[in-house]
């Protein structure tokens, strides 16, 4: 069975996903699609003074996609956006005790959705020069 390939952590986050849902008063929203298999992830952020106060997600995808969304929201909750941006798909995978090789791309989806949501917040709420600096930072990281 498929779940044999998933760690207990993955199965836990899949069966009991944290922070599922949407936020009416979100001020940063990121939606990304996975070119590889066609899945979609959406992350909602409520940021105050650059700190992520609340976060929710909705995901159309496999067990790994749902589990990585779930853990990613846990990892960023309460962090300031600069620290949140440092969270990579690698960190997400490690937090889940690993993923099967064919599922690594699903964890990239979580990283990308998170970045997209933070950038959305930044664009709407930061001064232009601050936003551009943030964008540059992301670019050089890639």
């Amino acid at each position, binding site marked *: 069975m*498929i779940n044999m390939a998933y760690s207990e952590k993955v199965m836990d986050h899949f069966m009991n*996903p944290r922070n599922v849902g949407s936020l009416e008063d979100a001020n940063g929203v990121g939606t990304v699609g996975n070119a590889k*298999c066609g*899945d979609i992830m959406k992350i909602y952020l409520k940021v105050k003074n650059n700190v992520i106060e609340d976060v929710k997600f*909705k*995901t*159309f995808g496999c067990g790994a996609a749902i589990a990585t969304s779930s853990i990613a929201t846990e990892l960023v909750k309460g962090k300031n956006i600069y620290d949140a941006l440092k969270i990579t798909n690698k960190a997400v995978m490690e937090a889940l005790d690993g993923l099967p090789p064919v599922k690594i791309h699903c964890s990239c989806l979580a990283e990308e959705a998170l970045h997209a949501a933070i950038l959305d917040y930044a664009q709407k709420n930061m001064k232009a020069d601050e936003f551009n600096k943030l964008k540059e930072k992301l670019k050089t990281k890639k």
Partner: protein
Amino acid sequence: MVYFDNAATTKLDKNVLESMLPYLTDSYGNPSSIYKLAQENRIAIENARSSIASIFNAKPNEIYFTSGGTESDNWALKCIAQAYQKKGKHIITSSIEHHAVLHSCKYLESQGFRVTYLPVDKDGLIDLEKLKESICDDTILISIIFANNEIGTIQPIEEIGKIAHEHNIIFHTDAVQAVGSVAIDVEKMNIDAMSLSAHKFYGPKGIGALYLRKNVKIMPFMDGGAQEFSKRGGTENVPGIIGMAKALEIAYKNLDENNIFLTKLRDKLIENILKNVPHCRLNGHRYKRLPNNVNISFEFIEGESLLLLLDSKGFFASSGSACTSGSLDPSHVLLAIGLPHEIAHGSLRITLGKYNTSKEVDSFLTELPEIIKRLRDMSPLYDEYLKNNLG
């Protein structure tokens, strides 16, 4: 646990196991040797061959034992093509074949053959007119899957065979999913070559057969000893052959009774799900389908998550979702019947078997709507749908 994946494989029938046991223990002689211990096995194999042949109205020397469906398909496609390549280099198949046929065709293309992949309609049926139109002067082989392993659609095999024969073309069918569920007469249905695999009808894994009409030429696939009329070398899988013959005998003895039972469960599943779960559709033909196959796409959700949640409730099924495929491509069969990627994504295949019960179907029907709802509540696509449709 509830096993709903009988198209993947089936549970070995106890009577089949019993028929095999002597050949896994005391009757270990090599059928090619000449002493008694061996010759008894030779006789047992030839009896099995006769018994299998009679089920399909074939002759015993038209049945070749192989290691299963994949080998039979590879052998038929590659080695019939090879035997007739002087006559022509064109092959016709469908776009919904099993990979054993499709990838054999890809190989043949790399060897200079031309292959036409016939499209199918929304129910998964090929168009006989298109088949006729695609025949060329140098067409040597038509290979069409008897019943599809994903959506269960059964092709008009007799008519396809008739068209092939009118044009003097050899007709092969991958009947791996049909054997054991459909009555097959190779004479009446104009079949020249047919692949079957024992583990799909409660027989053992790793044993199958190729039916090949007497006057049809084929090159050997396995060079070796003189086994299988010098066409397929290798010491025979004696217990497998005996088990396959027994499994076929049981399947065809109880065919009608079994099919009535399976069709009833199948139709209950289809009707109940389509009625009680919004935003879903049946894949494959409503009636021209295997008695045990249910394939339904649920919008806004992805198949692997669905399988995992079903697994957590003890139901084992399968899906054509890209996320379950290993290659991350959605099922070519679901795309061929015209499903957009995201709908192919949410497909669920339930394939029933003789060991399933009406109670299992009922408990599945109780659990399913809740599971679908849970995944939809998590889905951004469902959100979007609600937003667009509820103002």
